[in-house]
């Protein structure tokens, strides 16, 4: 591999004894970067170039390659705008609700008395469940909540209420929300736990010594310190739900969600020659995610001020 060879050689050159002259110092300084060149090239080719290609393609005619805004117009019309709205709303719901629930679970194990074993179990289980998106998850929920699902049967047996006759379906954004919680809640537990553990017991003791009640501690100390971290984690969950494709696709490949629509356009399921509409939708997704990540970074920086 060129990579390891460069890395094996470059440090040797750097540590060899001779005193550097002016020219060779700057040469050495630039040689130093050689070691990360393979990595940089790989990231550029595999990540940056394809993303830029999408951004450029969004403004080009599918057949002629001429510059145009037609793709953007198409991608904001028809089913695509509702798809984008559904995606954003679904992702907000799949970030906030699991965010709160995950925080409660994390708090429960963080303050548990014989916490060590419980914590180990919950953290390991969260690691395992957070990894459980995609196709298998869709099939488990079909087995659980489809018209012939096990839990659907239980509800009908117990209450004689057929949920599927009263507006519930697994194949709309609400149904998908129920499914997404399955990997979003454990994800939240994993990302918020370090922030909870960053709350120093000394702050709480100090607050209580000064006569603060529990709610006052949370209102004036714990809450404000934790809030940026919590919000950051919720944004991360938003990104996770917004990018998800496999679960929704395996449940219903015609649902109006942007990732599913991009997949349909690129597979040629809709109309030939519309790939570039897909690029425009892809560009929208990247822009939304970029905004979310910028806010996330700012919040993390704020959170890090106290939670060290």
């Amino acid at each position, binding site marked *: 591999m060129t990579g*390891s060879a460069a*890395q094996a050689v*470059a440090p040797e050159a750097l540590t060899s004894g001779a005193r550097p002259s002016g020219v060779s110092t700057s040469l050495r300084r630039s040689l130093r970067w050689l*070691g*990360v060149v393979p*990595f940089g090239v790989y*990231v550029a080719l*595999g*990540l940056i170039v*394809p993303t830029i*290609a*999408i951004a450029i*393609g969004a403004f080009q005619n599918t057949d002629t390659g001429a510059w145009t805004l037609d793709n953007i117009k198409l991608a904001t019309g028809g089913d695509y705008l509702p798809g984008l709205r559904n995606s954003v709303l679904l992702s907000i719901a799949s970030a906030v609700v699991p965010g709160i629930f995950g925080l*409660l*679970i994390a708090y*429960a194990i963080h303050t*548990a*008395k014989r916490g060590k074993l419980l914590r180990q179990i919950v*953290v*390991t289980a*969260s*690691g*395992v469940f957070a*990894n*459980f998106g995609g*196709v*298998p*998850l869709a*099939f*488990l929920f*079909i*087995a*659980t909540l489809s018209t012939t*699902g*096990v*839990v659907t049967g239980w509800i009908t047996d117990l209450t004689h209420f057929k949920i599927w006759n009263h507006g519930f379906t697994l194949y709309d954004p609400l149904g998908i929300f129920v499914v997404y*919680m*399955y990997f979003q*809640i454990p*994800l939240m537990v994993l*990302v918020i736990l370090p922030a909870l553990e960053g709350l120093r*017991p000394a702050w*709480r*003791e100090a607050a209580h010594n000064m006569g603060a009640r*529990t709610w006052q501690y949370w209102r004036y100390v714990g809450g404000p310190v934790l809030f940026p971290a919590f919000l950051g984690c919720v944004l*991360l969950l938003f990104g*996770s739900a*917004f*990018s998800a*494709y*496999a679960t929704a696709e*395996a449940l219903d490949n015609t649902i109006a969600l942007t*990732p599913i629509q*991009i*997949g349909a356009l*690129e597979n040629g399921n809709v109309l030939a020659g519309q790939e570039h509409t897909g690029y425009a939708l*892809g560009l929208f997704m*990247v822009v939304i*995610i970029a905004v979310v990540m910028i806010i996330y970074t700012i919040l993390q920086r704020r959170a890090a001020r106290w939670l*060290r």
Partner: protein
Amino acid sequence: MAAVAGVEAGAQAPAPATTSAARRHSFPVWRWAILLIAAVYFLIPLYSGLRFAGLKAFPDVFKQAGFISAIGLSLRLAAVTTILTLVLMVPTVVYVHLRLPQIRRLMEAITILPIVIPPIVLIVGVLKVAPGFLLSTPYLLALVYVILAMPFAYRSLDAGLRAFDLKTMVEASNSLGAGWPTTLWRVVLPNMRTAMLSATVLTVALVLGEFTMASLALWQTFPVWIVNFEQSSGAVSTAASLLSLFVTWLLLMLIVAVGSWSARKRGGAQVTLFTVAPRESSQTAGEPE
């Protein structure tokens, strides 16, 4: 979604918080209610899946048309991706730690990008720019999976390197007369064994479960096969889903087990399953010394 192995500072940090908070504010009923609801929500779909599939469907999975070739393709992709990932990332992470520690923040930011860019967008872009000879082979997927695995591989390797004093060991080795190849092979790599194992396991788990890119690139990997197969038998698809889950979980439990075994042996930091947040992982990982 996938996880990152983060290294955590043993018991010292959380322990005092736990005891003092628990002494004063213990709400057992509230706590158990939350955990019970969570347990019910997480276990019922598993139970439903087992009931829905029926035990008979499990052996049937292996007899289905296309199963062998799909699982074969997924395993080959996993092997190629893992090798490429280790060859690319291990030297890079070691090099950054030794020679360019000032760009560690940058590396963290770059390696988080694959999590941020939606996989559906990335694969569409890759299919747009990839040259013809790559488009005609499934190993194009392996090349892209290296990118997808990067956040997890980087974080486990980085955490692994933080757990011991790389610089001192390398200097000691060099001053004892070992050349760079010897130092890398006999000093650095043996100390990174646990980190490399978790990077490997996370990469394999990711590749075996990846659906989005494989289906867009029109290659029938195992997850794509499960979905395509649903039309013929829902029970078999559900059984196949459960099987792939259990395999993934076994792999992930393996990291935890090996991590805590090696932590006990070395008495140092403990490897736990951890996930995407970059800041948190660097914080907890930074503490051990």
